[in-house]
């Protein structure tokens, strides 16, 4: 009964799925007695993560149940996706569109474009608003205009079936565009004149622009955080194209062994950052990833919401990015348990709470940082000494890749003795759970010396693994 429904689930323009699914995924806030829809992207993030990580694994029923939606809703979604098949996304390269028809299989050999970035393009917007904002921004590209000029442009150029905006609407839009830095106001006296804030693009020569594109490309792909870098990269790529710079220009670099889904978790990064800066607590509902990729259905009726779910409250202090898996953790403090650690992928319904005094924040931060000091990733179990002998590869190969890797990845551990054939590595680390996979990844180039019980574990693990690959005996 393996996968019966694999190839036909994602023949889609990705934006359409978000729109369709979001209709049922708004969360609600009570505001002055009325219910206000507040757009939440929790489900989209989980949906995309599920597709990105486990793409192809589930049939309709399984997929729907893991997303917490009905099969009917899923079918409806898929139907609308098929209708929009012909309108494939202009943001995807040819290679990616082809890949999409087989699920979200990322082909990193072809392109450095981050496929999952479209999550951040999902904010819903009225048709009329998107037409108006675009008209304003495009009118201001090469000239300065007043609010009145812009209102005239809107009444002339907006489609007949969309009502022309009034002055108040235009002023509101300009205020918004100015706040987010897309346009700038010039002059001190009224009427103010506005212009697109495109100096970064306009003032650069073609050659400089190419260097800037490369810098943004490299940095977004190799550093965290990266979402804003990817958004900027998208824009610069279009500028290059607009200036007629060679079509291959944006396609010379690629990045291998990249954790593509890491950009989904950045969605929460700034909410956490703002809370930390203001020393505010955070409330959220945590869906422990340990329970599998299963997201319990969320009732969109506000009366039922949060009733059956446990809201967790912590004082957020730091986030940890784990390079071994490409995963993010939120580290905080909870009065009941002390240090609290959560995988960022399990955070939903994040909300800011009350703030705490500076001294309390500093005190807890100090304690947590001290506890994390010897964490391979986030483990805060008792600190112990791990000693391992690493064996150098055959020296004819010229490069000692074992030593290179231990030095590059061994964090604060030290090489204590060395001979022609081997060297000894020592580290004080919190528990062995997180360092063990790393030691094991060296295979027979690593022999654990201390602690003795860990050495025994390695022997028994390797025996077990050997049994996985024993040739099957035939009975004659």
């Amino acid at each position, binding site marked *: 009964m393996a996968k019966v429904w694999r190839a036909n689930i994602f023949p889609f323009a990705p934006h359409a799925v978000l729109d369709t699914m979001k209709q049922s995924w708004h969360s609600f806030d009570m505001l002055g007695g009325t219910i206000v829809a507040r757009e939440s992207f929790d489900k989209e993030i989980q949906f995309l993560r599920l597709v990105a990580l486990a793409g192809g694994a589930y049939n309709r029923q399984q997929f729907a149940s893991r997303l917490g939606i009905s099969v009917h809703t899923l079918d409806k979604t898929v139907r609308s996706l098929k209708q929009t098949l012909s309108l494939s996304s202009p943001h995807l390269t040819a290679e990616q569109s082809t890949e999409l028809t087989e699920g979200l*299989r990322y082909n990193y050999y072809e392109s450095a474009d981050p496929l999952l970035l479209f999550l951040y393009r999902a904010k819903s917007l009225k048709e009329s608003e998107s037409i108006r904002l675009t008209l304003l921004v495009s009118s201001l590209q090469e000239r300065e205009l007043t609010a009145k000029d812009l209102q005239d442009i809107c009444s002339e150029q907006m489609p007949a079936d969309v009502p022309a905006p009034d002055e108040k609407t235009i002023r509101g839009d300009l205020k918004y565009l100015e706040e987010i830095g897309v346009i700038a106001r010039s002059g001190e006296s009224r009427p103010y004149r506005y212009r697109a804030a495109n*100096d970064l693009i306009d003032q650069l020569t073609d050659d400089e622009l190419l260097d800037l594109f490369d810098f943004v490309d490299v940095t977004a792909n190799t550093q965290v955080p990266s979402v804003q870098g990817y958004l900027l990269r998208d824009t610069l790529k279009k500028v290059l194209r607009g200036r007629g710079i060679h079509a291959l220009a944006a396609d010379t670099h690629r990045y291998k062994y990249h954790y593509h889904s890491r950009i989904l978790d950045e969605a929460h990064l700034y909410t956490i950052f703002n809370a930390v800066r203001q020393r505010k607590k955070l409330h959220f509902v945590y869906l422990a990833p340990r329970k599998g990729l299963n997201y319990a259905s969320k009732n969109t009726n506000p009366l039922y919401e949060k009733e059956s779910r446990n809201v967790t409250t912590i004082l957020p202090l730091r986030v940890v990015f784990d390079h071994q898996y*490409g995963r993010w953790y939120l580290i905080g403090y909870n009065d009941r348990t002390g240090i609290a650690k959560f995988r960022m992928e399990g955070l939903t319904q994040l909300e800011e709470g009350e703030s705490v005094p500076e001294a309390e924040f500093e005190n807890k931060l100090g304690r947590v940082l001290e506890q994390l000091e010897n964490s391979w990733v986030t483990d805060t179990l008792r600190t112990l000494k791990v000693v391992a002998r690493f064996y150098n590869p055959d020296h004819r190969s010229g490069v000692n890749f074992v030593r290179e890797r231990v030095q590059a990845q061994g964090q604060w551990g030290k090489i204590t003795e060395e001979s022609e054939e081997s060297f000894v590595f020592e580290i004080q680390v919190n528990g062995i759970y997180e360092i063990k996979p790393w030691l094991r990844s060296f295979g027979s180039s690593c022999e654990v010396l201390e602690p003795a019980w860990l050495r025994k574990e390695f022997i028994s693990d390797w025996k077990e693994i050997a049994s996985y690959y024993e040739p099957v005996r035939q009975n004659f």
Partner: protein
Amino acid sequence: MSLFDKIFNYQIISRLDETGSFALTSQERTWLRTMLGHPEAEAAFAPETLVKLRHLLGMEEAPDMDDAASSGMDGDVRDIIIEKARSRQRQVYHPLLRPLRRIMMASGGVRLTVRLKHGGIKENQGGLPCKLEYNMAKREWYLLWYDTRNRSLMSTRLHHIAAVEPSELAPERFQELTERVAKLMEARKKQAVIGILPNYNSELSRILYAFSCFEKSVSYDETADQYRIHVTYLADESEFLLSRIRFLGLRVRVLEGGHLKHRMRQTASWALARYQTEDA
């Protein structure tokens, strides 16, 4: 500041595209300013470009800088991020990236001077540069190129390239070589199937994350309650794939892929030989 700002909405973006217009936000400029603070930015630009960029961004008023000032804190999100288990960063930028990418854009060939592992250099290596590749695990840049003399696809650390000179390539020759490279790349692709032991299904998320840096798809066999990861990789990546499989230990097992199975069997027996004094 929100990453889900309506200005990033796809309808707006595609409409802006139609009119050839652009919208650059403060948060993108703030990000860029932060990243330009990295010392390696020096290698990415001509000195005068860097001065110009810093000037353009310095004049920028970032809305969140005001908040930062009022709370007496730096506004850099990286202050709250702790990166763990990262490979020491050998390089983010390499001085050869700029000249090489320009040669590639012009569909040109190269003549390389390469440093050899045991010392010494090899001059006048002619070929076609294909891609500049950053290996996230090793945190290092490589040039993928086609060696025309030996007719083979090469991957050379930029660190080992002593000099690069452009060379002329006729358009037909460029086309011919590009097609040959594409065929060679395709021929190097391999497939393997890695099964998750059902006892470890509760760790599915962790295991899938560990393989998320490969081109892969997943299938699920309901009767056996087993997940299988179908990985596509290039032949020269098998060692990295193996290190991931060993990393996960008892949780996974290679189901298809003769070479990988052979290497896993070999590793397990060699590893046991290291411990043989106690218990063999």
